């Protein structure tokens, strides 16, 4: 028994709150991100009397969930959140749905009014399980002290098994105060939830046959490879190199394949590279591992990769044949799939058509030569692309382990395009839900997990204001997070769409009455820096990194810059719009496309 939690001498000497903490400890929880309130006071009281679990006090419950997401995505562990009933729980909902869409394992403990008041419209009562049902992978309301330990253990099992996701455990206050018995995590299999992780051998054989015979193959790797652990990324790199295939990553999976490898053809999708999208469009065999054919990736479905045979490996069978009908479905964990695939590939006697693959590479290199991410940095106005590129180059020169989070919008896409990632778990972004305000609390969560690493939130001036209160959390815990704002005084992605789709009528997208970010940083006990001229950029970046505490760097960038390449809504992969001065681009948004988001 741990000395830091009360020893269980009598069978019924633990309160519900103590049982919760003991279960968390058994599940390996070291940090909880939370915010107290009436219904969870018993848990806060128990937290006060122990040292095994550290509590990080955020400034808003949404931020608690994003911080736990950042912690979970950078470590591969289950993130843990503690919030009170009513508004505590409803504030957490955006974060929960964010974690659901991006498959992040979390357990969120919510306080609830005592069981006898449930349904009475009591103070700070909310139907938390009702509200969070579509925003979680699963949720529980504990109504008996005897179910408590088992439920918390189950929650962690569900959160991390199969396709990971957030799980809510709703805890009425009387249950937290009741006396009960602690039970260890069950050893036997879960009664009903047993996701398949080992792939079917026959499907692997079909995949190998298709891939061996491919003349224009492409590997499309998604976030599922990250969720399968670092070994899966190593296996992916091994497979891609031995098969000499081009590899593209989704927004979620950047870092899963080294950006510096010549076989990496960049991110794909709406703001992906020309070479990645044209390779997807023109391939004859596509191997999707751990991605879900998201609409931001596929563009117009009936024009998506029309001539290819498609292999789709996913741990979640509901992802298969959801948007795109595939030829070889494989259900399994990405690491297990890649291991089986490499084994079968090596055992298979057939040879690849090396000549055809060389010709395919020449074609890809031709697309690459168009240098679709080229931009002109001339004069004193800082191009946002250049700001990200210099940030990348300077951090790379320094050789420090660097973690990047982002908010949502243009800056997010520039970060994805211009910052190269060599390893998984270094890139934290809100992909599925697109939650502005994600990046700052997520960066705080990463910094808690890696106190000595360089953690940077690449932000926009609009997004950052959505959870700016978390500067207080950085100050309290001395978290040296760097907030790198690409300040173009616009909700840039909204402005870009208004320019392209709505006749440049910039309705409500101007960031009026902005705070002075330097003074704002100072008022939160952080360092504030600003660059308004291209000549200041490098010095500001270096000073930001060198400062031992938290920093806001306000980088005033070109207000008119747009994110290119761009596949307009409702268009196909071969209908990209390119940046100024670049030929190509069929462009034009159709009326059908205008309806899409």
């Amino acid at each position: 028994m741990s000395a830091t939690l009360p020893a269980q001498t009598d069978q019924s000497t633990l309160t519900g709150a103590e049982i919760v903490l003991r279960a968390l400890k058994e599940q390996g929880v070291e940090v909880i991100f939370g915010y107290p309130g009436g219904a969870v006071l018993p848990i806060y009281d128990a937290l006060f009397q122990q040292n095994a679990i550290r509590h990080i006090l955020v400034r808003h419950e949404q931020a608690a969930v994003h911080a736990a997401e950042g912690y979970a995505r950078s470590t591969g562990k289950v993130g843990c959140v503690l919030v009170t009933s009513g508004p505590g729980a409803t504030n957490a909902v955006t974060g929960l749905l964010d974690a659901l869409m991006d498959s992040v394992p979390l357990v969120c403990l919510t306080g609830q009014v005592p069981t006898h008041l449930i349904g009475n419209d009591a103070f700070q009562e909310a139907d938390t399980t009702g509200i969070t049902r579509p925003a979680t992978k699963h949720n529980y309301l504990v109504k008996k002290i005897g179910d408590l330990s088992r439920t918390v253990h189950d929650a962690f099992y569900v959160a991390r098994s199969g396709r990971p996701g957030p799980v809510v455990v709703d805890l009425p206050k009387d249950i937290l105060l009741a006396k009960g018995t602690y039970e260890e995590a069950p050893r036997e299999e879960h009664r009903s939830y047993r996701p398949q992780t080992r792939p079917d051998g026959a499907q692997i054989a079909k995949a190998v046959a298709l891939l061996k015979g491919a003349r224009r193959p492409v590997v499309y790797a998604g976030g599922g490879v990250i969720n399968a652990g670092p070994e899966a990324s190593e296996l992916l790199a091994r497979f891609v190199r031995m098969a000499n295939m081009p590899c593209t990553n989704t927004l979620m999976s950047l870092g899963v394949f080294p950006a510096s490898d010549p076989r990496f053809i960049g991110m794909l999708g709406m703001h992906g590279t020309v070479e990645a999208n044209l390779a997807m469009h023109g391939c004859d065999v596509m191997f999707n591992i751990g991605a879900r054919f998201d609409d931001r990736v596929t563009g117009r479905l009936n024009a998506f990769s029309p001539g290819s045979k498609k292999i789709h490996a996913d741990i979640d069978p509901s992802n298969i044949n959801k948007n795109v009908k595939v030829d070889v479905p494989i259900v399994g964990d990405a690491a297990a799939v890649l291991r089986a695939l490499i084994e079968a590939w090596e055992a298979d006697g057939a040879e690849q058509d090396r000549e055809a693959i060389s010709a395919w590479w020449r074609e890809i290199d031709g697309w690459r030569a168009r240098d679709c991410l080229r931009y002109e940095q001339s004069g004193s106005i800082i191009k946002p692309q250049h700001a990200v590129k210099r940030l990348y180059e300077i951090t790379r020169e320094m050789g420090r382990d660097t973690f990047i989070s982002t908010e949502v919008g243009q800056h997010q896409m520039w970060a994805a395009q211009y910052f190269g990632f060599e390893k998984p778990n270094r890139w934290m972004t809100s992909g599925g839900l697109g939650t502005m305000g994600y990046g700052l609390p997520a960066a705080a969560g990463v910094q808690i997990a890696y106190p000595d690493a360089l953690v940077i939130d690449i932000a926009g001036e609009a997004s950052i204001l959505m959870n700016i209160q978390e500067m207080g959390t950085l100050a309290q815990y001395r978290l040296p997070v760097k907030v790198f704002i690409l300040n173009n005084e616009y909700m840039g992605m909204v402005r870009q769409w208004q320019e392209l789709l709505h006749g440049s009528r910039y309705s409500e997208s101007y960031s009026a009455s902005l705070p002075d970010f330097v003074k704002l940083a100072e008022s939160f006990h952080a360092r504030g820096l600003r660059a308004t001229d291209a000549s200041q950029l490098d010095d500001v970046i270096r000073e930001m990194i060198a400062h031992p505490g938290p920093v806001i760097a306000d980088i005033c960038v070109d207000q008119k810059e747009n994110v290119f390449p761009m596949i307009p809504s409702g268009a196909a992969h071969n209908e990209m719009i390119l940046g100024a001065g670049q030929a190509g681009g069929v462009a034009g948004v159709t009326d059908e496309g205008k309806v899409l988001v």
Partner: protein
Amino acid sequence: MSDTTQRTATIAVLVENEAGVLARVIGLFSGRGYNIESLTVAPVDAERRLSRITVVTTGTDMIIEQIKAQLDRLVPVHMVADLSLEGPHLTRELALVKVIGRGEARMEALRLGDAFRARVVDASHESATFEMTGTADKIDAFVALMRPLGLAEVSRTGAVAIARGPRSLAA
């Protein structure tokens, strides 16, 4: 991929008999925009705390495959089967049909009830309530015939279904 042919599927789902499980299933259908033509639920195994849900739905093959996969990944779901795809099966629905009337209309209602093998389970001088089981089509037909004869109220269970022969759905 572009197959737009709609079909009706009868899906059987074995679930944990616990609070909220029906809300999860219904929420899945409404949240993802799937049709529910009927849905029934009742406990079927007290010892193992299992309930059985029968959902009748329509959609393309791709949608129905999605519905099955989405149901299957719910934590309290033990097993999902598309009975209409997996072979011959029986479907039954129970209806209580109340008819109000006197004289010739009432006589005609009782005669038709007989013909449809509906049982009269309650009667007064001016009303009769039939209980009938059968397929949804048969009940539809009976209800349509009762309409001009003083149909007052219908209560239906929705379909329950089971595979023919020795095949069975086991958790």
